[in-house]
């Protein structure tokens, strides 16, 4: 798969310390995925919790929000096709200039911020992540940032222990770290596609332009590639 080859190329030249960090993140993520499946039946069910899945409904209903880091995500389902059952949308709370907006003491939610979309993760019916993708601004609203700024927000995306969802938050934090090189590619592709349009403001609101970039992934193959790289360095 193209995504695995891209990761292999990246890891081949990465410093040892980075490989150690990514390997730790991968182990944490796989372990959390197994724990979620044992505890809830699947990663999806850790959010759905046995409810009937309705298109566009959010799971869990109020989204998962880490108010300390300004990170947020939720799962929902509505896209046609056999690739995914549904997907996670990841957000980061920022000011229009891209800076972190801190939550005022005593407030449970931001009142004037626009959560900005980072990217989305497609999951199959068993909870296995199968693709990464980005969407146009009108799909999620929020402030719009270029790939470099969005990547700086992805690097600060962190889901702490949220009551009842500690396992899935652990899975997601590790997963984002593992796929950082592909997320960067995804965002660069997104920007390149928009750059082909003469007017960015119009393009960001063009209802015919919804999905901007998509990269299918093979999580198992990517884990094998990472472990092979770690073994090569130990030999």
């Amino acid at each position, binding site marked *: 798969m193209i995504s695995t080859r891209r990761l292999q190329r990246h890891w081949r030249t990465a410093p040892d310390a980075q490989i150690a960090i990514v390997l730790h993140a991968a182990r944490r993520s*796989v372990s959390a995925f197994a724990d979620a499946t044992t505890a809830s039946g699947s990663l999806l069910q850790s959010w759905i919790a046995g409810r009937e899945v309705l*298109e566009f409904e959010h799971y869990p209903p109020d989204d998962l929000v880490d108010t300390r880091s300004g990170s947020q995500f939720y799962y929902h389902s509505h896209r046609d096709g056999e690739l995914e059952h549904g997907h996670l949308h990841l957000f980061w709370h920022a000011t229009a200039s891209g800076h972190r907006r801190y939550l005022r003491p005593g407030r449970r939610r931001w009142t004037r911020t626009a959560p900005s979309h980072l990217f989305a993760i497609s999951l199959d019916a068993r*909870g296995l992540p199968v693709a990464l993708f980005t969407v146009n601004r009108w799909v*999620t609203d929020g402030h719009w940032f270029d790939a470099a700024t969005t990547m700086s927000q992805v690097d600060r995306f962190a889901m702490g222990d949220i009551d009842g969802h500690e396992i899935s938050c652990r899975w997601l934090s590790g997963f984002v770290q593992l796929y950082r090189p592909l997320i960067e590619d995804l965002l660069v592709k997104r920007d390149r596609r928009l750059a082909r349009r003469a007017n960015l403001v119009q393009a960001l609101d063009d209802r015919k332009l919804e999905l901007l970039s998509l990269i299918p992934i093979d999580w198992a193959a990517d884990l094998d590639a990472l472990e092979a790289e770690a073994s090569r360095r130990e030999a």
Partner: protein
Amino acid sequence: MNSLSSTLARTLASAVVTAAALGGCAMMGCAGSKCGTQASAQKCGACKAKCGACGAKK
């Protein structure tokens, strides 16, 4: 080696398969964004008031 993918394969073999989503509220004509956060969807609430599907499922 390949211990992580082996763990993943074993996990997937025991995972519950979740049924596909049933038709819900597509928020047509809604002021909220299609895939925005829950807070933005709750700003208007028109979708819940208009179709009644959300009330019927409870």
